[in-house]
C-alpha cells in the first residue's frame, strides 16, 4: 500500500499536529507516532537547550533508505520523518516520526525501527548546553 514518504530537516519548530494529519489516510486504521523531546537534565546537570547540526544531504539520503527498508518489511502507508536542527529548547520536539498503516502492528513496529535506526546511523549531532557546566557533544548508545 505504497504512500508518500516525507523526510524533512528544518531549523523551524516542528508542527507535530500538521505532521500527524499529513499521515492520516482513509485506508488506514492506525497512525503511530514517536516524538523525541528535549529533557531538562542529564547526570544531575540542568539542561538549557540542545543544539543540533547535521550533514544534511547525507542524513536525508540515509533516512530515505531507512524508509525504503521499512516499506520492504512492513505494509505501511505514509511515512513522515522530520528532524529539527539548531536550538531546541526543553520540552520541544527534536524529531517527529509518523507512520500510518491499515492495521496497528505494522506502523507500531515500523516507528520503533525508524527511530532506532535513525539514532544509530543518521549523520545528525546534538550538543547539550547546561546551565552551569561546559556544553557537551552527545553520543547515542549502541
Amino acid at each position, binding site marked *: 500500500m505504497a504512500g508518500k514518504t516525507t523526510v524533512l530537516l528544518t531549523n523551524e519548530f516542528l508542527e507535530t499536529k500538521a505532521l500527524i494529519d499529513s499521515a492520516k489516510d482513509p485506508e488506514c486504521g492506525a497512525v503511530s507516532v514517536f516524538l523525541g523531546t528535549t529533557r531538562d537534565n542529564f547526570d544531575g546537570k540542568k539542561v538549557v537547550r540542545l543544539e543540533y547540526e547535521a550533514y544534511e544531504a*547525507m542524513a536525508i539520503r540515509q533516512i530515505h533508505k531507512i524508509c525504503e527498508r521499512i516499506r520492504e518489511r512492513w505494509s505501511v502507508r505514509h511515512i513522515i520523518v522530520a528532524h529539527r536542527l539548531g536550538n531546541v529548547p526543553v520540552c520541544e520536539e527534536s524529531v517527529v516520526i509518523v507512520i500510518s498503516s491499515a492495521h496497528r502492528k505494522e506502523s507500531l513496529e515500523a516507528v520503533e525501527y525508524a*527511530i532506532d535506526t*535513525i539514532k544509530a546511523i543518521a*549523520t545528525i549531532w546534538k550538543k547539550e548546553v547546561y546551565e552551569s557546566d561546559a556544553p557537551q557533544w552527545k553520543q547515542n548508545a549502541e
Partner: protein
Amino acid sequence: DEFPDSISVLFFAKAREAVGAAERKVFVKRGCRVSDLVRDLIVDYPPLKAILSCCVVALNQEFVEEGKDPILQPKDEIAIIPPVSGG
C-alpha cells in the same frame, strides 16, 4: 601530480570545532587514498588527532566500510563523522 580540482572535506560537531571550520578544500595527488588524506589532515589540524579514533569517514555521502581505503577521484566529497547523536 595533483588533481586540477580541489576535494571538499566536511567537518561536523566535535571535528568541526577541532578544525575551526565546517569545510576545507584540499588538493590531493592522483592515487591518494582516504587514509592518506586523513593523515594529511592531522598534520594540518593537530587537534583532530585526539578525536579521529572515534570518527568514521564518509565518501560521497556513504560511510567508507571498515577495511576499505578507496582512491580519491576528482570532485569527491569527504566528511569526517564523529559518533552520531540525532533523535
